[in-house]
């Protein structure tokens, strides 16, 4: 007869049995979890979904299985599994004025969020427990798949890993389960029974009947492992959904003026110059006076240009006054204001290249102090092309020593144009 196993061998067998039992325990945990998940789904047509994001943390965590009971009566506080119509925040945080949201933007995907309020129109407000903001789209009761009833922790993780191609944890868990499955033989195979009487060790091959009777539960465990890793009949949130975040710059404000008409404004010239017939090719743009003279051979004229503002359609020149201050006074003359017929420049204009005069005429007798002309029609005619004003003596080409000077824009009291728009 074989000797009884030594105590040390007995202890080793018990230890092996314990390891086998541990493996069996792990497999049993997985198997029971699957049973709990599958039975209501199969027997009662409840829905099993895998939580893929942390938006319901800490209640639900990624990898959890949620078994949902179909319901058509959502209530506040209920964790609902529903089909989302719009982007659903998987996580959000409020920071200053910017709300950064991470949303699953896929249309028509399943989401597990909590109902936080009912709207008057029969829809519901949903929100992830971990989110600071509710979901943007209201939930319609027709989109409710069910109310969360059972949560099986972790069991959906392999599905997430499969979806995301996260092979490292998948391989790790698979290896662990495979090891557990292999270990189970020490718990369930009679040949390794630490309490069985020992005939020989290892078991003799001639004991054919016994060998055939050997249960090989590790193969059953391997099958369970396969079941776990193969896509089980769970509807899962696609973990590869597009995540997104937003930032913004809000509340831009633009207000147009009540009227684009400038109102009343006083302008000073941007250009003025006398032209002298006695110096027909000389430019006098920098002088501090503007001469006006009517003589046999020494006629003088003065050109003035004001920076007229652009005016929109419907805005009109209501009134315009040209005001010049006298520098050298000559009594008894009549000075006319007209329009230049084309463009000119202060630094180049001369008697010989002057544009000439055109348009309306307004005349005033010469004044010892200041002179004001009503140039409303002139300014109105200066839109859209503004060639400036011309001051001329009413009697050019006759008489002697008949000149008057006004102060130019280079002088102490420059010309002014007061214009009222409306």
């Amino acid at each position: 007869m074989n000797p009884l196993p030594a105590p040390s061998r007995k202890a080793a067998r018990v230890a092996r049995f314990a390891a086998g039992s541990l493996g069996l325990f792990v497999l049993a945990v997985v198997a029971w979890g699957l049973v709990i998940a599958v039975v209501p789904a199969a027997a009662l047509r409840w829905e099993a979904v895998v939580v893929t994001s942390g938006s319901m943390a800490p209640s639900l965590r990624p990898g959890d299985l949620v078994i949902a009971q179909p319901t058509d009566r959502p209530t506040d506080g209920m964790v609902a599994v529903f089909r989302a119509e719009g982007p659903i925040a998987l996580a959000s945080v409020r920071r200053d004025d910017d709300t950064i949201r991470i949303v699953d933007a896929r249309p028509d995907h399943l989401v597990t969020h909590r109902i936080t309020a009912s709207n008057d129109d029969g829809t519901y407000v949903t929100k992830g427990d971990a989110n600071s903001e509710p979901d943007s789209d209201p939930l319609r009761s027709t989109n409710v798949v069910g109310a969360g009833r059972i949560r099986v922790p972790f069991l959906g993780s392999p599905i997430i890993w499969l979806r995301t191609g996260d092979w490292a944890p998948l391989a790790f868990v698979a290896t662990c389960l495979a090891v557990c499955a292999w270990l189970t033989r020490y718990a369930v195979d009679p040949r390794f029974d630490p309490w069985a009487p020992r005939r020989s060790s290892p078991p003799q091959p001639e004991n054919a009947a016994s060998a055939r009777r050997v249960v090989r539960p590790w193969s059953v465990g391997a099958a369970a492992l396969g079941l776990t890793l193969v896509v089980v009949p769970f509807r899962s949130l696609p973990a590869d959904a597009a995540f997104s975040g937003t930032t913004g710059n809000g509340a831009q404000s633009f207000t147009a003026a009540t009227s684009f008409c400038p109102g009343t404004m006083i302008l000073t010239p941007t250009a003025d110059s006398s032209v002298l017939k006695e110096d027909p090719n000389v430019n006098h743009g920098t002088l501090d006076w503007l001469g006006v003279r009517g003589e046999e051979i020494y006629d003088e004229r003065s050109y003035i240009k004001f920076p007229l503002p652009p005016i929109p359609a419907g805005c009109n020149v209501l009134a315009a006054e040209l005001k010049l201050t006298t520098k050298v006074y000559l009594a008894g003359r009549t000075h006319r204001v007209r329009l230049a017929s084309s463009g000119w420049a202060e630094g180049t204009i001369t008697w010989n290249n002057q544009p000439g005069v055109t348009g309306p005429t307004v005349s005033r007798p010469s004044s010892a102090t200041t002179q004001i002309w009503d140039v409303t029609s002139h300014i109105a005619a200066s839109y859209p092309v503004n060639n400036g004003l011309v001051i001329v003596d009413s009697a050019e080409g006759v008489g002697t020593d008949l000149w008057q000077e006004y102060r130019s824009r280079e002088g102490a009291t420059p010309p002014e144009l007061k214009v009222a728009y409306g």
Partner: protein
Amino acid sequence: MDATTNTGTGRRRLGYVVTALAALVVVGLLTIEGSRAAFSASTANGSNTFSAGSVTIADDDAGSVMFNLANMVPGTTATKCINVTYTGSAPANVRMYGTVGGTGLGTYLDTVIDVGTGATGGSGLSCANFTGGVNAFSNTLANFGTTHSNYGNGNGTNFAGATNPTTRSYRVQVTLQDNTLAQGKNASATFTWEAQNV
């Protein structure tokens, strides 16, 4: 032989039956407790965690608004720059879109948006050092709100396939058209930048 074998087998069987039952108890407790915590009617307060955070985007405006223009007349113009930074873990496309409201001034606000880099930005929204601009939009503000209203039709010029971190400077210029029909009108707008992983 049989008696002793049965005794040993009985212990062994008892062992794994107990193991299986213990597993059921553990799973049951985990499930029941987890379900009770998860599906009780109390709403947990937002803990502001980024459990799934793989896409994050932020700007540097520090709460400032780009445009706050009053009493605009034809030709009134303003140019502002904002830096938008993507720091997500996966490559993403960033697109700009907005909403435009108000009483109709948006139709008369010519808007030009260029996407470049380097702008000083900040709360002053300064365009100093803006460089490498690529024109992203040139039309009216109202048109922007119509044609770029969400991520789907958002403007993704010069900000595709962004990796962590990528910063772009958005230069926005707004000019009021010369049209009396714009008198007295106003417009409001929000600009949003959204990143979605590729």
